[in-house]
């Protein structure tokens, strides 16, 4: 049905958190009041859509009026009445609320494959996906291609696992397809756990059917008749949409017995993770599905030979699977035309930290880091100096400013001591202390280690203790060497990827920011002014007017001074919260 007016409201987790539901209600109410409601079914349709990437500007609303699309940003319920009045009824968009140039700059520099339908189609309606070409790939595969041909296409596309390790997907499928077993499994790993990463969540929230279609095609290729989506329970919206999508796919006979009339049965179960980061590791994930404690096992045997319930099992990440329908629809050559020689296609990154346009981006592999930061990301917040970007989460490393022109692909990032990983990208500016950032990641890996193997369980704890003493001013000579030595040994001896990569943030920050470590240890200074124990706040006599503002906000009562006389901070009592600096109009307080 053709609609003259289409309203699309961003209802990913980000959109809802910013008030998307209220905005939707406001549209519904106001449209009713303005007596457009009666016609709503005929001329107007309203849709929830998933994340389109630029979460920083939520709630984003697209209005498509007579085929002209206008996008509004930062929409609150009170704005809805004016939009309806001026835009819908009078035909004049409310220009002051329309997205600015940076919204377009953010999107125009990206190439979207996995995210191409996210933010455009309604994730809760299978028809929306089908109308956009969804399930065409499945039809094409099942009606015209053999499993072997399908695997060949995926191999040719050069798609590599998007979960972090980058293993060629087609090859994995091929290994599993050659196993002779009456029972095989395909598992979608949606246990996205890296701090600051939300690629997989957004894909499932925005386009769950692409993942399902990818899984069905995978199952057909390897000969599996059962699938699992292992998804973290902390993603309730994604779980809800996934379950809804599975129901719809069953109704449309894309899942179940005799799919598309062929002798092929396949269905998917949803298994909720209970919040353990390590369950993203494939053998731990399998243990968790089997009902055991989520603990990794030694490989070999690899899951493609002996996986879930000891049967051949393919485990692919969400983004990997969501790529599959698009590759088959458009051809392996098309997909391989993006990216570099060894890293084909596009990759979704979660761009966060001190960046102006934080959000979800999809870029071709091999794009220079500078383009991501400055063209798509719009540069550093508050025009601060770029210091580094942390990629790959707790398993990754930091890339310093001098390497800003590096290409973002598996090989290039590995060559500088970082990784593509699952796609987290945390941008750091001059106010970030590298020791502190490293400490954060080690706190994370330390508390998420399963405890099975010695180097990870005790080693990461000791690394963290050394970092803690450095950042608290108790660093000792030789601590950098000790960190390096222990990091090396933990990497060499840990059982699974968690321990083997946990020291990466330390090694890469020591490599590029050794001077910061030395300043902490030798001079007992934190150059970025972050590590509290190394800071002291002082009032500069020449600027203090004795207004008393700082004294009033100090929660510790550490500031004394008569009115109109220079104030003093008692460093023993000071809790270094920084409230005084913010309150001082005369910039008379410094930390250092």
């Amino acid at each position, binding site marked *: 049905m053709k609609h003259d007016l289409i309203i699309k409201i961003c209802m990913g987790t980000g959109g809802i958190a910013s008030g998307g539901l209220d905005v939707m209600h406001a549209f519904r109410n106001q449209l009713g009041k303005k007596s457009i409601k009666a016609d709503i079914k005929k001329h107007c349709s309203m849709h929830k859509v998933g994340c389109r990437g630029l979460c920083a500007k939520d709630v984003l609303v697209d209005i498509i009026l007579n085929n002209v699309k206008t996008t509004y940003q930062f929409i609150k319920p009170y704005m809805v009445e004016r939009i309806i009045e001026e835009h819908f009824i009078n035909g004049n968009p409310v220009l002051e609320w329309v997205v600015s140039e940076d919204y377009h700059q953010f999107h125009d520099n990206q190439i979207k494959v996995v995210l191409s339908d996210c933010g455009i189609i309604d994730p809760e309606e299978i028809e929306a996906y089908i109308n956009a070409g969804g399930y065409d790939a499945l039809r094409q595969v099942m009606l015209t291609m053999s499993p072997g041909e399908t695997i060949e296409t995926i191999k040719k596309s050069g798609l590599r696992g998007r979960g972090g390790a980058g293993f060629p997907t087609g090859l994995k499928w091929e290994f599993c397809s050659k196993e002779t077993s009456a029972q095989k499994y395909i598992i979608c790993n949606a246990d996205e756990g890296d701090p600051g990463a939300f690629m997989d969540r957004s894909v499932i929230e925005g386009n769950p059917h692409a993942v399902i279609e990818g899984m069905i095609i995978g199952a057909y290729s390897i000969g599996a008749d059962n699938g699992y989506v292992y998804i973290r329970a902390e993603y309730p919206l994604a779980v809800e949409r996934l379950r809804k999508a599975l129901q719809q796919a069953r109704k449309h006979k894309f899942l179940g017995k005799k799919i598309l009339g062929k002798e092929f049965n396949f269905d998917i179960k949803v298994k909720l993770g209970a919040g353990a980061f390590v369950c993203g590791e494939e053998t731990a994930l399998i243990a968790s599905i089997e009902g055991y404690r989520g603990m990794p096992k030694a490989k*070999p045997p690899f899951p493609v030979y002996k996986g879930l319930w000891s049967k051949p099992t393919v485990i692919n990440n969400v983004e990997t699977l969501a790529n599959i329908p698009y590759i088959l629809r458009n051809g392996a050559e098309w997909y391989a035309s993006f990216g570099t020689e060894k890293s084909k296609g596009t990759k979704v990154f979660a761009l966060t930290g001190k960046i102006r346009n934080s959000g979800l981006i999809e870029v071709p592999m091999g794009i220079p880091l500078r383009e991501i930061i400055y063209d798509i990301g719009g540069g550093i917040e508050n025009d601060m100096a770029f210091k580094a970007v942390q990629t790959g989460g707790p398993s990754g490393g930091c890339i310093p400013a001098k390497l800003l022109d590096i290409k973002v692909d598996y090989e290039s990032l590995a060559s500088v001591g970082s990784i593509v990983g699952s796609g987290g990208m945390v941008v750091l500016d001059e106010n970030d202390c590298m020791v502190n950032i490293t400490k954060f990641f080690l706190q994370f890996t330390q508390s*998420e280690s399963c405890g099975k*193997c*010695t180097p990870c369980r005790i080693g990461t704890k*000791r690394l963290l203790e050394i970092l803690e003493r450095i950042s608290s001013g108790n660093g000792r000579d030789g601590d950098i060497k000790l960190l390096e030595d222990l990091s090396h040994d933990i990497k060499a001896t840990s*059982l699974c990827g968690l321990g083997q990569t946990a020291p990466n943030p330390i090694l890469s920050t020591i490599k590029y920011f050794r001077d910061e470590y030395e300043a902490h240890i030798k001079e007992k200074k934190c150059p970025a002014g972050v590590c509290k124990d190394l800071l002291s706040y002082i009032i500069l006599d020449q600027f203090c007017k004795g207004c008393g503002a700082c004294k009033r906000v100090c929660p510790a009562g550490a500031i004394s001074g008569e009115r109109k006389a220079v104030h003093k901070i008692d460093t023993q009592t000071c809790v270094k919260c920084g409230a005084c600096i913010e309150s001082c109009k005369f910039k008379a307080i410094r930390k250092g």
Partner: protein
Amino acid sequence: MPNLRIDGISVSAPEGTTILDAAKSADIPIPTLCHHPKLTPYGGCRLCIVDVKGINRPVTSCTTPVTEGMEVSTTNPEIEKLRSTILELLLSDHPNDCMICEKAGDCTLQELAYFYGIRENRFEGERRQYTEKDDNPFIRRNMEKCILCSKCVRICDEIQGVGAIDLTYRGFNAKVSPPFGKDLNCEFCGQCVAVCPTGALTGKMWVTKGRQKDIREVDTVCPYCGCGCSLTLHIRRNRVIRVSSKENTINEGWLCSKGRFGFSFINSPERLKTPLIKEKGKFREASWDEAFDLIVSKLKKIRKKHGPDSIGGLASARCTNEENYLFQKFIRAAVGTNNVDHCARL
């Protein structure tokens, strides 16, 4: 059968054998804390790492199967350095109170610390602190000494089929525990105690009674039931202070709670040491000769008056096979009846 070389020595081992087992068969020692030949390979302690040509990182020999043409190096400066670091890490979170530890002298961790000469520790830091609890007379758990090798967890699950304990919590706080951190409330077979490589698990009844070096071992058969498990009594100053079982026995070294912990009767003041004869409702001590004479005269009397089938014999499962054989022979041949039975016949 794959042929491989371990430290330059040619070894062939059946398909599926791990490097660790293949090395053992060639008498090449590899240190390990978490491996037990009868339990699923675990790969947790990481001490058994070896270098395999063509693999760019050390692999755990306890989990890696041998392959044709494999070249394994079980020791080299890098591997030994890594093992030493692992031991240092373990000892950095260990009470190191070997002077008063039950397990001293029989502790794999202590032994490895000795062989690797670990005295200083680069990683001194926080140590896990737990208060001991458990209101049971059998198993003492000192979790500060636990190195999380998980042998206890696996034996309880895989051999005993009970699953009373598992790993709980994460990271540095990971701990072997019964559900919800409650007191241990299992069948107290003590299999976990038997496999614990450190002093984390000990039998309450042998605490401070004597360490391994102080004892004399006597092999015997368990008197409790018809299984006839082999026992090894640990004896100090002519008293049984502990019971264990060896791996190469009919019961493969496994015992139940009675066999392992039920030995206090041996030195009990209430234990019967002479036959007792009841006269006028009261027992009095008697000699064996006197007792036998009484039995013989009474049995004869009954047989004469009522016939041999008026007599029946019931033997105890706590007797050995030989004793039970003799007993049925006596009932059949001497008394002359087939009325004989045995409580372990079930």
